[in-house]
């Protein structure tokens, strides 16, 4: 028994010494380097989101450092894996704050992990810019938390405005995934604005999260014969719906939101001539977008998705704020963030009083022969 207590205390001492040593080493060399943390899922099911965002962020850091950094100081991006798990995210954040002593955080990538870290971040007054967390609550009552992406309801409104103003649609039907906050949120916003624009919602159909048979709902929609069918869901659900609709000979234009990104790969025929809202378009005429895509492809060989673009923009916005603040004090950075305006790949980013993007452009994309084509940009 005595022996065990002795060995336990020995282990405890060793662990403690490792921590204190780590603390020493990281605080000594930080004069010439500004450390920014990144948190997102880099492994597991959601890895694609985290890795894309971190690759975009890293690309921006490299570019900024090449151009001279922030007042001669280089930026170091320290990325930790949240594994899409709330506890892991909190651990990662604690490590960034205590061990690495970062001055600001880009993250979290997913809404759930960001909400889990929110209370800690607010208590620490850490300057946080989430590239991609869309849940409304992320920025509520959190003066130090900002985000680079627009919210779910914002793109629903943009889709409705596009349907009315550009497509001249008067009637629309909704097809909503019940129990899916994303689908419900975007549809509700679409319905509100489309009705306010003088349009009529002729029908609202729904399906469960595990449903694969959509024929009953589509039969009803066909009978209603709307000009637009709004289906804001992810590719795995939207694809079969579009294919079934094509098979049934439904001629309405289908529209959706950023969850459609990737629909052109496996459902090109069924998705032909339909539209969705997104954060950016790879074939946008903007020079900024094209140079970003070239740089990204040189580095990672794939075409960047929205997550990469938002991660890239987030770093630029944060850097701009730190430069404007002239110091790495949290309060100075947060104040600077509220005043920052950045022309980025995903549009013009400036923040409203909540820390959400204000008047950001929503890109409308048309699917044409298996390609995503830039259609137009909408500002609500």
């Amino acid at each position, binding site marked *: 028994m005595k022996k065990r207590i002795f060995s336990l205390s020995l282990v405890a001492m060793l662990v403690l010494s490792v921590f204190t040593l780590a603390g020493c080493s990281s605080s000594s060399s930080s004069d010439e380097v500004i450390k920014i943390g990144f948190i997102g899922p880099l492994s597991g099911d959601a890895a694609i989101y985290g890795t894309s965002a971190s690759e975009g962020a890293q690309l921006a850091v490299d570019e900024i450092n090449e151009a001279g950094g922030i007042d001669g100081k280089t930026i170091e991006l320290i990325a930790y894996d949240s594994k899409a798990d709330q506890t892991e995210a909190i651990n990662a954040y604690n490590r960034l704050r205590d061990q690495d002593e970062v001055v600001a955080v880009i993250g979290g990538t997913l809404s759930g992990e960001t909400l889990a870290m929110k209370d800690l971040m607010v208590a620490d007054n850490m300057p946080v810019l989430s590239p991609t967390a869309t849940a409304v609550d992320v920025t509520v009552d959190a003066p130090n938390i900002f985000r680079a992406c627009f919210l779910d309801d914002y793109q629903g409104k943009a889709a409705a405005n596009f349907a009315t103003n550009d497509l001249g649609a008067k009637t629309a039907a909704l097809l909503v995934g019940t129990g899916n906050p994303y689908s419900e949120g975007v549809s509700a916003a679409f319905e509100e604005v489309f009705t306010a624009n003088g349009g009529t919602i002729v029908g609202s159909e729904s399906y469960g999260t595990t449903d*694969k*048979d959509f024929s*009953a*709902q589509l*039969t*009803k929609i066909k009978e209603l014969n709307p000009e637009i069918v709004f289906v804001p869901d992810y590719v*795995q659900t939207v694809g*079969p719906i579009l294919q*079934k609709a094509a098979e049934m*000979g439904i001629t309405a234009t289908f529209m959706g939101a950023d969850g459609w990104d990737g629909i052109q790969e496996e459902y090109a025929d069924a998705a032909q001539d339909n539209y969705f809202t997104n954060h950016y378009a790879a074939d946008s005429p903007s020079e900024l977008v094209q140079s970003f895509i070239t740089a990204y492809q040189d580095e990672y060989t794939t075409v960047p998705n929205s997550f990469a673009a938002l991660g890239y923009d987030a770093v630029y916005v944060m850097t701009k704020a730190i430069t404007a603040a002239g110091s790495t004090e949290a309060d100075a950075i947060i104040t600077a963030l509220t005043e920052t305006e950045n022309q980025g790949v995903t549009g013009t980013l400036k923040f409203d009083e909540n820390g959400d993007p204000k008047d950001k452009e929503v890109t409308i994309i048309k699917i044409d022969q298996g390609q995503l084509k830039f259609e137009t940009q909408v500002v609500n």
Partner: protein
Amino acid sequence: MNLFLQQLINGLNVGSIYALIAIGYTMVYGIIKLINFAHGEIMMFGAYFAFIAATSYNMPVWAIFLTSMIIMAILGVAIEFIAYRPLRNAPRLSALITAIGVSIFLQNLALLIFKADPKVMPKLFPEKIFYLGGIEISSTTLITVGLAIVFMILLDLYIRKTKQGRAMRAVSEDKDAAILMGINVNRTISLTFALGSALGALGGVLYSVAYIQVFPTMGVMPGLKAFIAAVLGGIGIVPGAMLGGFIIGMVETMTKAYISTTWADAIVFAILIIVLLFKPTGILGKNTREKV
């Protein structure tokens, strides 16, 4: 009225698939009194083999169906041989738990081999819409319902008219007496698994063609619903499974069309509870008291 008929066709489409899968449940139960919960996974693997045959080997349509059905028939027999046969004389509960284990094993095996992301099933039939009165029927629906009915008739004839069919009925009625009559019980049980699994695979291929995707957990919900269909029709009775399948498909589609999509699954499962409470032997089942 036309809308109602159109929904009826939708119900017939999904119902015929449930019926095909339900037959597998009911045949196996009829012969060894085992609810083979791995049957939904048989259906899923059937769909995957059809997917591979269609995309990698570019086979003609009839060969795709045949390959998938034959492979699954062999796999069904293998599962029975490896997992269920050693438990033939064990308590029924052990076999049931084993069946659930096999189901989970097969699901994870598929996850390992094929990964979680849904594969898109190529269109096997030329797309065409037929007009019948005011209603429209797609070629996929027509072929699905047609194939299902043809195979059900063939199975019914096989069970009623052939020698092996008669052996099957004999084993299901009284296994020990069947042995005394010189029937090879093991071979008959294998044959039952082969037929049930082949029809399950057919159901899986038709399901993936109708609903486009193939993924490791695709067998779970249709499997459960087919199980309810088998219970509703009277488990152990082949025509009952067919009837039950069509009824469940209709109820599901009509609930979605006229009541609420969120309630569709709840209502289908409520049917199971109601049947078990009021007529546990099912629609076509006879009320026989179990001998003690």
